[in-house]
């Protein structure tokens, strides 16, 4: 069986991640519960007419995927696999609102075409003239973990050389307002921005596009090796320990072999209890790392966790901003486990090691 390496990555997020440095100057968002991605310089990647036409998620994805491909120095991809929770929701809203407000008149196809869930994977294929395998997963919190698992299987089991995977979600104003209305996102006036201490309902909503090139060959710039990935739709809190143990055992490891765990705490009192349980399991052996206080929550946020784990494994250590209370952690992190769930569902585990 082949090994699977992360040879390149690109991340557009609410932090300055596209410049390639690893959270050297983190932006602290302290007065909003919906945070928007920092726009990269689109002009260097996309023709001006397309910049006007494309939604932010598509543009961010084109930039992030280009960065990943450039870093990995690949000429030919054997697959393009994306995950997106809400899909191209900005164009969906646009078409939907026009259809409703103008009673099905004056509609044009552009936003309908661009609202399709596989717009990004299709656009990247089009741009690269890539005829290879092209998939898009849309399974809420399991969207990106599904894309990662598919990519991993292609490299490990199917003899493929280079697979591009990505996680994409974008903010659309009305839809996010609806999510605020039902308490999935914290209300505008609610002070709870320090989400690692927050114990109120809902999360701080974010967005991002994060891409990786998975390869069967280790190179100088390789970040990390992906050992395994797994996801299930449903889990009781008391089943989490068994879920994690089984997964680690399958990879000939146990809890004490994990140097750092990346947890998805998002400040939602109803569901962070899963992470409390994970903290309990790992706190005596492993560094506990958090990221959604910097990146916000969205359905494909686990892609950010993989970006973080990859950087941590390349450098051997994590910046203090990823620890609770800015504490200092280990400087020889060799194995990282990522655990994520979305509103108590779509529990995913990803295991990575250094190279």
């Amino acid at each position, binding site marked *: 069986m082949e090994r699977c390496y992360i040879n390149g990555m690109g991340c557009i997020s609410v932090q300055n991640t596209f410049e390639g440095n690893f959270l050297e100057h983190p932006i602290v968002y302290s007065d909003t519960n919906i945070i928007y991605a920092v726009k990269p310089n689109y002009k260097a990647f996309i023709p001006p007419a397309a910049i006007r036409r494309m939604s932010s998620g598509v543009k961010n994805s084109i930039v992030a995927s280009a960065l990943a491909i450039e870093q990995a120095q690949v000429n030919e991809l054997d697959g393009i696999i994306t995950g997106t929770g809400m899909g191209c929701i900005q164009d969906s809203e646009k078409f939907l609102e026009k259809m409703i407000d103008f009673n099905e008149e004056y509609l044009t*196809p552009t936003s309908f075409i661009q609202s399709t869930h596989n717009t990004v994977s299709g656009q990247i294929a*089009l741009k690269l003239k890539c005829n290879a395998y092209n998939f898009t997963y849309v399974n809420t919190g399991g969207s990106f973990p599904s894309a990662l698992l598919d990519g991993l299987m292609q490299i490990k089991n199917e003899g493929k050389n280079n697979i591009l995977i990505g996680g994409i979600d974008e903010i659309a104003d009305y839809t996010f*307002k*609806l999510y605020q209305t039902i308490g999935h996102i914290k209300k505008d006036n609610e002070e709870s921005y320090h989400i690692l201490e927050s114990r109120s309902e809902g999360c701080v909503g974010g967005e991002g596009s994060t891409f990786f090139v998975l390869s069967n060959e280790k190179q100088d710039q390789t970040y990390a090796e992906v050992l395994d990935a797994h*996801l299930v739709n449903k889990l009781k809190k008391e089943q989490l320990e068994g879920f994690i143990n089984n997964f680690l055992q399958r990879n000939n490891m146990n809890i004490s072999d994990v140097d750092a765990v990346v947890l998805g705490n998002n400040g939602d009192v109803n569901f962070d209890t899963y992470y409390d349980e994970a903290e309990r399991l790992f706190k005596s052996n492993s560094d506990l790392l958090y990221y959604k206080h910097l990146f916000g929550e969205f359905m494909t946020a686990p892609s950010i966790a993989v970006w973080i784990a990859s950087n941590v494994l390349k450098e051997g250590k994590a910046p203090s901003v990823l620890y609770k209370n800015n504490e200092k952690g280990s400087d020889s992190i060799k194995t990282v486990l990522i655990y994520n769930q979305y509103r108590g569902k779509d529990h995913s585990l990803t295991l990575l090691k250094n190279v």
Partner: protein
Amino acid sequence: MKEKVAITGMGIVSAIGMNAEENFLSLKDNKHGISKIAHIETTLKDKILVGEIKKSNQELESLLNLPSKNNFSRSSMLGAIAAKEAVQSAGISTDGNTSIGFINSTTVGGMDMIEKYYRDFLDQEELQHYIEVHDAGSNTDLIAEHLGIQGFVTTISTACSSAANAIMLGAKMIQSGRLDQVIVGGMDGLCKFTINGFNTLMILSDTYNQPFDDQRKGLNLGEGAAYLVLESEASYQKRNKKPLAYLKGYANANDAFHQTASSEQGDGAYLAMKSAFEVAGMKPEAIDYVNVHGTATPNNDLSEGRAMIKLFDQKVPDFSSTKPFTGHTLAAAASVEAVYSIFALRENLIFPSLNFQNKMEEFDLTPQQELKEKEISAVLSNSFGFGGNCSSLIFVK
């Protein structure tokens, strides 16, 4: 060549039947399901024909015994009905089952409820439970919950090839040893968003769709859901279950030509078919019947036809499109047609391509127009979608 993946169960709802048996009888008796829209309020009502399931949402709710306050979209109700039939026919129990996987696909998700209540959500609290099932995955979750599945669950959305890709992923999960049993397929209910979207693309026919006809005017949208239960050899042998058929080949390729249109020569379609034969370790001449994508849009049928001529080196086997029966059921199309392909293998029958009159002037291809009895041991099924997404599946006895 990889291990064959067995199909041990199937379930389907479409405009021509609420279960597999009804669908089979309609196909055999030439009974199509295309009509005017009855259950959706749209200004396009009198301008287009669709393959609608002749049941209201309330009727679907009662078929599933759902509580009066539920947040099932039309798609997820159709999905739940078909998935239930699939697991029943496989003879497996899903309630509390942690070892069975579920790979669903959809393009519509919860859009039908969102479009209905969009402007009322903010001030009508009693509607707000529909907000959280807007996204596709939450609709899969409703079905998983309904069936009691606790395990590997995911959703694919690659436009009109979605269900083929769900079937393909299921096969790979079995062949890699990650699963022994998995429910795979797709669902899409009709909604205003989709109808209007396709209308702006000007590819909807105002009459009955005519695949591969020179005068074809476009597609009829349809709705439906269909699922297969895929199973490893070790698993079905252990429980002495006789497979319905096997999935032997599969592949996905990208046309990389245009966001919505297919390339002139059907490059992606050709590549998908060719790769599926490589995976199957079979030669094209082993195919007895092709269930074509055949949407009856000018663009699709031309590029699919050319790709077939190239692949089969001019000797295209018997083929038909079943979309004149069901309409184009989008994400569900490939699993609906997978069920029909299995009927073809089981019954040694080729179902007719309805409404065909004249050959296209670009090539010499005539679809099968009448029900034909013939020994069938291998079927190729094609599905192509937006984003250049092309998938082919090969089913064998």
